[in-house]
Structures are given as C-alpha cells and as structure tokens.
C-alpha cells in the first residue's frame, strides 16, 4: 500500500480526534444524500414540468379539451 501523504495523514488524525457524534452524523449524512440521490435518479430526474413549466399545448389539452369517449369522466365509470 502506498504511503499516506502529509495531507492524508493530517485528515486521518483529525477524523480520529473528532467526537463520536460528529463521525456518526457525517456517516448518516453521507448515507442520506446517497439515498436521496438514488430516489431522485430513479423516480424524479425527468419531471414533466421542468422549472415548474409545461408546454402551453399540454396545459390547454388537460384543461380545455373535452374528455374523449375513450377517456370517460369519473361520473361515467
């Protein structure tokens, strides 16, 4: 294994001197950001409304175009 550089040794010593709570919280935060990123990547990375905006035609279609017979209103279900 390659010898540690001065900076790495200093970082490792600071880490071992830090309080147990600081170490635990750091691990939790790393885990949390990882899980959050995974959720974002799996389900939310390609939202229909980027920057809170849709194509005008999409909005018009949703709000103003009458429901087609293939897409019955709830009352007819």
């Amino acid at each position, binding site marked *: 294994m390659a010898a540690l550089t001065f900076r790495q040794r200093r970082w490792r010593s600071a880490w071992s001197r830090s309080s147990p709570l600081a170490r635990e919280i750091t691990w939790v935060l790393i885990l949390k950001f990882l899980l959050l990123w995974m959720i974002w990547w799996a389900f939310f990375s390609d939202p229909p*409304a980027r920057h809170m905006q849709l194509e005008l035609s999409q909005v018009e279609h949703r709000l103003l175009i009458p*429901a087609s017979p293939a897409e019955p*209103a709830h*009352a007819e279900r």
Partner: protein
Amino acid sequence: MPSADVVELSRLQFGLTALYHFLFVPLTLGLSWLLVIMESVYVMTGKPVYKDMTQFWGKLFGINFAMGVTTGITLEFQFGTNWAYYSHYVGDIFGTPLAIEGLVAFFLESTFVGLFFFGWERLSKVGHLAVTFLVAFGSSLSALWILIANAWMQNPVGAEFNPDTMRMELTSVSELIFNPVAQVKFVHTAAAGYVTAASFVLGVSSWYLLRRKNVGFALRSFAIAAGFGLASTLSVIVLGDESGYATGESQKVKLAVIEAEWETQKPPASFTVFGFPNQEAERTDYAIRIPYLMGIIATRSFDQPVMGIKDLKADHQKRIENGMIAYGALQELRSGEQSQKTRELFENQKRDLGYGLLLKKFAPRVVDATPAQIHQAVEESIPRVAPIFWSFRIMVGCGLTLLLLFVLAFYYCARRSVIERVWLLRFALWTMPLPWIAAELGWIVAEYGRQPWTISEILPTHLSASSLDPAQVYFSLAGFFTFYTVLLIIEVWLMLKYIKLGPASLGTGRYHGESGAPAKA
C-alpha cells in the same frame, strides 16, 4: 386526465412525505430558541452549567437538524414529477418563496449551525451567542417562507389568471408576503414548534430527575422548559384562536367542516365540542354544543353568521354555473376568438373559473354539464367531514393537556418542589409525543380541509396531478417510505443514545457516570 388511482397515490405520497418531514421541523424550530435562552443565561451569569446545557441540548438539536435537513426537498421533487399541472399553473408565484426558503436554509441556517458547533473555542461568548441567535432566526425565516407559500395555497391573494399563458401570475408581492393566512399560520406553527421543544426538554429532564441523575443540570433545564413551554402553549392557543378567525374570513368551507356545521345557525353560532358527524344525513349525532362560542371565535361578533355546509353548497352551485361561463369564454379565447365581448365575459366570470374546472371530473364537456353532473361537482366541493372534525378535536385536546402540564410544571418550579412530584415527572415524560401528534393533526386539518383544491377555489386537485403510470408512483412511494423510516430509526437511535449518555457526553468531568464527578451530579 390522470386516473383517480394516480391522483390518490400522488396525494398519499405528498401527504406522507410532508408529515414525515414535519416530525423533524418543530423540534428544530423550538430547540434553537431554547438554546438561545440557555446561552443567554450563560453569557449573563458566566455559570458553566448553562454552557453545558447549551452544548448538550445543542447536540440533540444537531442530531435532529442533521436528520431533518433536506427531508423537505423530496416535496420539491414531487412538484415537477407528480404535480406537473399544478407546477405550471402556479409556478410563477409558488417558485419565489420556495427559492428564497432554499437560499435561507442553505446559506444562513446551515452556515450558522456549523459555526454553532465548531465555534465554541474560536468565538467570544457574545459572538457565539449571536451565532446561536442566527441559527434560530434562520430556522424561523425558513419556516416563514414555506408557510407563505403554503398560505397562498389556502388563500391565493396577489395573483391573477392569465389566459394567454394559462398560468396564475403574481400581481402583488406585498399581498403574497402579508397574506393574513400566512401571518397567523406562521405564528401558530412556530409557537407549536416551541411547545414541541419545551415538552422534549421537560420530558428528558424529567427522566433524569426520576433516575436521580444529573439533578442540578436537569432541574435548570426543566425550569427553562417549563417557563418557555407555558408561554408558548398560551401563544399557540391564542394564535390558534386567531387562526380560527382568519379561517372564518377566507376559508369558510374548512371552518364549517371543522365544526361539522351543516346549517347556518342564528348568530352567534354555537361551538360543537363533541359529536358524530353524519355526512350522508348532513347532521351531527349526539352533539354537545357551547352556545355563542363559534360565532365569537370565527367572526369576533354577536351578529354575523358562520355559513353552514348546506348554504355553502348552494353558493358553490352558483359559482359552478358561473364557472361554466368562464370556462366557455376561455375556450373561445384560446381558440383565437379574441373579441372584446369574449374577453369581458371571461374577465367578469374568471373568479369562478376554478369552480368550472371542478366539473372536468364529471362532465366530458364542461359547458354542457347536466344538472346531475353539477350536483356531483357540488358534493365534491366539500371534503369528508369526520376526519377533519376529529383531527381538530384531538389536536385541541393535546394542546389543553400540554397547557395543564406546563402550568403544573411552572407552578412546582416556582415552589422549588419539582423533584418530589414523581407524578409530575412521569406526566412530563409520557406526554412527550403529544406536540408531535398535535402538529401532524394540525397539518391534516389544514391540508385535507383544503380539498378538493390544491389552490383554494382556483385549481382542483384532480387537474393538478401528472399523468403517470401508477406503478411508478407505487415504487417512489415505497422508496420514500423506506428512506424516511430508516431516517426516523436512526434519529430515534441517536437521540436515545445521547440522552442516555446525558451531559456526561460533553466530557467535562462534572456529570453522572464520569470519573471524578460528584455522586449526585
């Protein structure tokens, strides 16, 4: 239109993530101010025990802050993905307070939280107190911006619908910021956070006192929590009353549903303390009422009525019929028929466009809706009464129990006999979950009571959701459920670990379990 399943699943997902997020928020909001009080006493008296208190409760604050930070960001993920039409419709207004909140949270709050923990040896006493104050101020400021955004959903002021962009557009920033609902919501929510933190400190201190551990430390913490908690609980109750008045002014349906007020009573209306709302028969069975109270709370008068659900439905029917006209005019404007007459017709009726949109769920062609379809939309315009009626009463019950706790805690603190009152210490310990239960139920009242709208009287929920595959929402819901449950387990585990260690975890050598510490430290 998205299927009803997708709408319901998206609502469930948003509701669950918001409720999970709010498990962390109130403790951060309140504990930060308790730290300011404890550290102020330390700066004024120079007694090391107050520094220890600030550092120990600061540790628990740090755990909660670390667990809670960014849990709210998942709500913002959902806006663009699950609520695309909502996002488009109101993004011009809603985006501003959310962006400011993000900046405040990341740059002010997080920076000063870092300084709070790492600045003890590097800053002067007063300098560090200023940092602690800024942590508390930053937390409250974050909450303010979020609640401004939320209040706008309940009472959409300072904005108008633009038929050319098909969005709501901001017309007055000051109206948005000084929305009366935002004002009462902020103070009520912040005060509820203070109660949560006071109950937390009181409960944990009671646990130490019951075990005769860290007695001096616990008694001082208990005393500060008792005073702060009593003031905060009284504030929550007074500000909750103010919230009732604001609701009576701007959210008549929510008020009628909270009260299960089916008929408009002769003023001043009575307050239903207890009963069983029967939505089908439109009456409250076995109701116990206090005369005049509701009228006074909701209208601050003896001669103004509080509208009942039946009258509100009649009003909604008229507004739905006006909404059909607005909807027809909007269709014509969008199809290129831009005559002055059509524009005027739309401008005159656009206040009720949202009510016309309610019909989209029931009528394939809104402008040709039948009386039966209009009737369905009218029925839809009132949320289910029982969940809101009960949530509100349990919330109030929790609040009154906490008031009793803090009155007793304050009284026995003043008489310096807390430690002998084992029953009081047990009461404080076992009532620790109540502020969280009350806060969650408060959100259920506020948000479920807004249905069937995402933006009150402007945009119905069923038109706000994206057209997604239900499987996608099931998977993301499962992902969130796992994520938040893991976080909650870690939070509880870390909290319990450091509570059990107590102030001995500071390593000062002054507390129970440390070598050299006095036996009853």
